[in-house]
């Protein structure tokens, strides 16, 4: 019998309206009880002292790329799952843009199986919307669901055809799954490699305008309204997109959205260094956009924060800016950046932190967890909110392409508990 008592921490579980000094008992991989002073009532197989720490329902990252199958030099499911628990994530949803793409039942099953073998964070595949991510024909969405897919998306390739998205939304609605779209109009974005604005004008780099995102957000919202299906817009980056989403939500459209930590903390001015670690999709925007995104995070327009973890080995990133692939790793820095910038920087309550990184993603993807209710999975993240640490340069991830190397952040996972087992401990876990 496996048994773990997380004792003396401040438990924050917005789904149940809980915020207080409580003990959490996990048995056989399930939360059994959340109550004061359980520690005094008896002896337990294992006790974690969480005094001075914050106990959250296990964090869920709903947008990561783990490169398996196909590009295991950059990341594997095992290395990604290890990086996840290092960053406090007990579960991650994996985009299908692997080689080959995860566009059938077997592909999804393979990722689930690799996740079980890794034995760290839970791995949830997101299946492709279109076969081969080509945007032409629908993939077998029901088969993908059977294989374990929790959502459908063409990853970083937006669905260009409106009709394709309309059909995907209808089909996904039948399967009670969400479609995740990364909105971008390719024609307007052209060959852009950064935000189109003052900085791109100075640097002579081709830009992607805010309009290239907003035009697609508009279209997608119209289709979500038309179909009544649940649409999730991933990694929203502009003030204008957020405004469109706010209005649509007000109208009752079934739309949710997420933003990334880097879009909450960096602007296009970082690109002046020509350092490819600042090349991301969508591009880093302006300070005004950053402010608007933070506002949306605080007021509830934004439903989740996701890392958009995109590992690239150094030889791929150590090239001219315009030739470098887009994306940064984020599994190990997301929690720290969010706590530093939003909790410490903007006074965001910890209940909101738990919603954005746990309850929100669980609700969007229909996953178990996101709460510490009795019977919920024994996935718990114990966080040191005030302890400062310095990012990198070494990471558990196989890749090091982080824009935050050298930053000092307050906030990191002290223990990541998955299935009632300590999958990660920042310091040696106490015996007994």
């Amino acid at each position, binding site marked *: 019998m496996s048994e773990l008592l997380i004792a003396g921490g401040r438990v924050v579980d917005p789904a149940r309206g809980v915020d207080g000094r409580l003990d959490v008992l996990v048995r056989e991989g399930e939360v059994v009880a959340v109550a004061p002073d359980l520690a005094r009532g008896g002896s337990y197989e294992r006790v974690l002292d969480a005094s001075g720490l914050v106990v959250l329902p296990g964090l869920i990252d709903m947008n990561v790329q783990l490169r398996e199958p196909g590009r295991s030099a950059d990341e594997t499911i095992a290395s990604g799952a290890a990086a996840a628990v290092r960053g406090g994530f007990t579960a991650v949803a994996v985009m299908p843009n692997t080689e080959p793409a995860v566009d059938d039942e077997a592909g999804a099953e393979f990722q689930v199986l690799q996740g079980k073998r890794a034995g760290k964070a839970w791995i949830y595949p997101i299946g492709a919307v279109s076969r081969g991510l080509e945007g032409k024909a629908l993939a077998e969405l029901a088969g993908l669901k059977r294989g374990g897919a929790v959502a459908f998306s063409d990853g970083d390739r937006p669905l260009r055809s409106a009709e394709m998205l309309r059909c995907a939304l209808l089909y996904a609605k039948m399967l009670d799954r969400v479609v995740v779209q990364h909105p971008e109009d390719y024609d307007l974005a052209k060959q852009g490699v950064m935000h189109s604005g*003052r900085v791109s004008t100075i640097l*002579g780099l081709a830009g992607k305008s805010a309009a290239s995102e907003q035009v697609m957000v508009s279209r997608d919202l119209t289709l979500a309204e038309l179909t009544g299906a649940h649409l999730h817009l991933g990694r929203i980056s502009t003030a204008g997109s957020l405004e469109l989403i706010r209005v649509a939500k007000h109208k009752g459209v079934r739309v949710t959205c997420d933003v990334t930590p880097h879009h909450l*903390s960096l602007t296009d001015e970082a690109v*002046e260094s020509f350092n490819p670690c600042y090349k991301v999709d969508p591009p880093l925007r302006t300070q005004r956009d950053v402010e608007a995104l*933070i506002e949306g995070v605080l007021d509830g327009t934004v439903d989740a924060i996701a890392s958009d973890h995109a590992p690239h080995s150094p030889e791929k990133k150590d090239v*001219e800016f315009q030739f470098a692939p887009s994306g940064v790793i984020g599994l190990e820095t997301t929690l720290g950046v969010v706590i*530093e*910038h939003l909790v410490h920087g*903007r006074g965001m309550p910890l209940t909101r932190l738990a919603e954005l990184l746990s309850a929100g993603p669980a609700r969007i993807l229909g996953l178990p967890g996101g709460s510490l209710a009795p019977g919920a999975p024994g996935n718990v993240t114990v966080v040191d909110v005030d302890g400062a640490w310095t990012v990198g340069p070494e990471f558990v991830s196989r890749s090091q392409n982080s824009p935050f190397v050298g930053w000092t952040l307050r906030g990191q996972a002290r223990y990541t508990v998955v299935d009632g087992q300590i999958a990660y401990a920042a310091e040696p876990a106490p015996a007994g």
Partner: protein
Amino acid sequence: MKEAPRAAWTRRDLLGLRELSAEEILSILDAAQGFADISTRSIRKVPTLRGRVVVNLFFEPSTRTRLSFSLAAQRLSADVLDFTTGSSSTVKGETLIDTAKNIEAMGVDVFVVRHSAPGAAAILSRNLEAAVVNAGDGAHEHPTQALLDLYTIRQKLGRFEGLHVAIVGDIGHSRVARSNIWGLLKLGAKVTVVGPPTLVPGRFAELGVEVSHDLDAVLPQVDVLNMLRIQRERQGTLNFPSSEEYTRLFGLTGERLKRAKPEVIVMHPGPINRGVEIAPEVADGPNSVILDQVAAGLAVRMAVLFLVSTGTRRDPPAQLPGVTSPGEAS
């Protein structure tokens, strides 16, 4: 005996004009003046860089800029190597940095770099010991071209303060335009960029220049007309419908030039599309200083090669402007 003190040049690289002070730009122009004299002597060579190695690392075809740099290096008695490849894609899978480091290992002192990617010279500067001179990086900067333009303007008009310069053409894709804009603004000139809005984004106004889409309205006001080369391959795309239409709206014909001040000087960075952005009678006419620009290019490049060879200062890896550091936002 006037020996105006100027801030001494200390940089190891010339990556762009945006990062230079007005004093640094003028110190290059002054040095170039000294080098221009050398071309008039019986022995047109000085021993200054004897034993030094300058390599032209060109990932884009550009015969003229490369020749100008080669001759400049040779007049300074440097040994010159050429590494030229037609494309910017990596050669046999080798990255830009690896290619340059390999060449540097042969004992190179100065890299002259031409590349289609903005920032290519900056990336090399961060990864090499040798001095780096940007000979054009994508649409970002082409500092020696702008310096030779500035040199020519000073030679012909004797000042920058109060001058009004129009740069006409495909501003959005032009490194020449950007470097000229920084240099001219720092030295006190007024700049108007002119062309169709598809090639001259209104956002250029944020750089401190005026934006116009009407050449005829601008012509009477300016002291200098810098006519940029129009890439014919862009015609018939969304950028502009045809070169005929471009010429009708923005080409500098003899007839149109009559609207300008009689003493206006007409510049062109070359190579010229005769009859497209500039008519032959204008290119060869009395207002044209196009060949003076070519001669100035040699003096400016000698000065730049000399100065970066004496420089030691290399900016530390870029401070990250605009990065909202933790807590700062609160």
